[in-house]
């Protein structure tokens, strides 16, 4: 399904993961069936009669809800745009462009999947985990946050997922970074998927480096770049890859970590 511009209605808002909210928004018929984990929607973060903030903001789909033609997104009120979205109420209307971007892809031969999530970066990995479990794959989900309150509730993940957490303040799980935990799982994992702040990717790469032979397991990463158009026209969101500049809104946001030119 090519990207569409549509008016969406906020169907539900639930607190989740620190000060973030899980927001259920309606989508056009059929869209919830087609979304792939890693794709995102581009939301206009303002109401009628104002031109500021000007640009849309991208949010990864956390969970499709084909049963009522909607998707969940996880919104952290970080700045002006996400703050506005987070302040909206049930029933409010949002101007949305989506679905955009490519998604994570699970290799046909992969059995054991390792997820490494930082903060709201958990969103697309929730969807990926649900899909993997449905396919009968084994999933370990590593989640990091500043405090226990900033972690994803285990209820958001399928029961069969092994959920391991780390907090900066030690209030739950491992006292330290989520990337400290990852090396243990390298021998087990057939693929690694990660989403979160760019600093986390760098330290993940560093942490896993000595444990990976022949760049195995492969690591897929969802990159976060400021975006204007979301459809490949502005070249504002590029990622430097070993094959050159890549517009992360269409060619990404998911990339093979080893392809990124850091």
């Amino acid at each position, binding site marked *: 399904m*090519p*990207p*569409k*511009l549509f008016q969406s209605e906020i169907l539900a808002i639930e607190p989740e993961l620190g000060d973030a909210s899980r927001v259920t928004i309606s989508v056009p018929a059929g869209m919830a069936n087609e979304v792939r984990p890693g794709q995102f929607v581009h939301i*206009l973060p303002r109401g009628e009669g104002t*031109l*500021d*903030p*000007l*640009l*849309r903001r991208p949010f990864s789909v956390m969970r499709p809800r084909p049963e009522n033609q909607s998707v969940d997104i996880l919104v952290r009120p970080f700045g002006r745009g996400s703050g506005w979205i987070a302040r909206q109420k049930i029933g409010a209307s949002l101007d949305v*462009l989506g679905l955009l971007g490519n998604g994570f892809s699970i290799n046909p031969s992969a059995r054991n999947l390792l997820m490494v999530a930082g903060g709201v970066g958990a969103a697309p990995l929730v969807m990926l985990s649900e899909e993997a479990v449905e396919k009968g794959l084994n999933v370990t989900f590593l989640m990091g946050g500043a405090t226990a309150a900033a972690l994803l509730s285990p209820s958001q993940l399928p029961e069969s997922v092994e959920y391991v957490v780390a907090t900066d303040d030690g209030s739950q799980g491992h006292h330290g970074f989520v990337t400290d935990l990852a090396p243990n799982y390298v021998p087990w994992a057939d693929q690694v998927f990660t989403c979160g702040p760019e600093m986390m990717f760098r330290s993940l790469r560093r942490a896993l480096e000595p444990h990976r032979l022949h760049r195995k397991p492969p690591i897929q990463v969802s990159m976060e*770049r*400021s*975006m*204007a*158009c*979301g*459809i*490949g*026209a*502005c*070249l*504002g*969101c*590029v*990622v*430097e890859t070993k094959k*050159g*500049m890549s517009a992360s809104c*269409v060619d990404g946001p998911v990339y093979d970590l080893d392809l990124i030119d850091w």
Partner: protein
Amino acid sequence: MTLPDISVDLAPNNPRELRLANPVIPASGCFGYGQEYAHLIDVQRLGAFVSKGITPKPRSGNPMPRIVETPAGMLNAIGLQNPGLRDFIKKYPPIWNDWTVPVIVNISAETVEDFVEMAATLDEVPGIAGLEVNVSCPNVNAGGFCFGWDADMTAEVTRAVRAVTTLPVIVKLSPGAIDIVEIAQAAEEAGADAVSLINTLVGMTIDTRRRKPILANQTGGLSGPAVKPVAVRMVYQVAQGVSIPIVGLGGITSLNDALEFFMAGASAIQVGTAMFVQPTIAMDLIDQLPVWLQQQGCESLADIIGSANPRFRAKLAVESAESAAV
């Protein structure tokens, strides 16, 4: 009942003409090469579109971050990322040649010779309806001083491009000039078929946590609604000083904004940043403009061009009296 005529010729003095079915044109750098939007809108219905600025050699553009939002605007420092003239010609004009929408190619260069090379090479390429000469780039032979800030340099580029192409030539003016009318007149005298204005203003925002400019390039081009009053003013002034068509742009996000430019004296408008925000905006304008004109009792778009600019209308009247007398 037929709707008012909104077609426009942006190169009335050029045998090759630049006839558009309507005066709505996505701006350079804001519409990629046309394919990007093809899933969202009917690209063929556009008056025309301007492709991303190309340069003689391929450019990978500036490091990241390249864009940042500002109050009712944005800064960009894309750095003219493009495949370079040769690959460009192979890849895009053949596609456009099968399209009905006229495509205007935006060319950028740091020397007059580079402008000439591109203009000459593109002259006979099928699929290209016109050139937009971006004189807002720094002139490397003038110590980084921008071509478009100086009337003589603008005239030199225009004249050189004019000499090597019969394609309609639109010179795209920079708002950094002190007296934009003087620059527009220099372009007109040197053979430009039309002028477009404005390109971006130079701005900066600082990340106060990291204590450095947000853009890796430090400065970037300011666009969007924030700059609209500057753009309208410049179109209004230029309209009083030149007789070639003016393409107005800068911050247009609505029909009312577009009307401001038409009433200031623009024959056509471009939509840049707003394409990112509301990809359907160009289509909306194409649909709304004739309906609005009809409601106002106008027979054609020409009725409102410069209608808020009495000195422009007076000049127009004199010119048409003169041409009638000939």
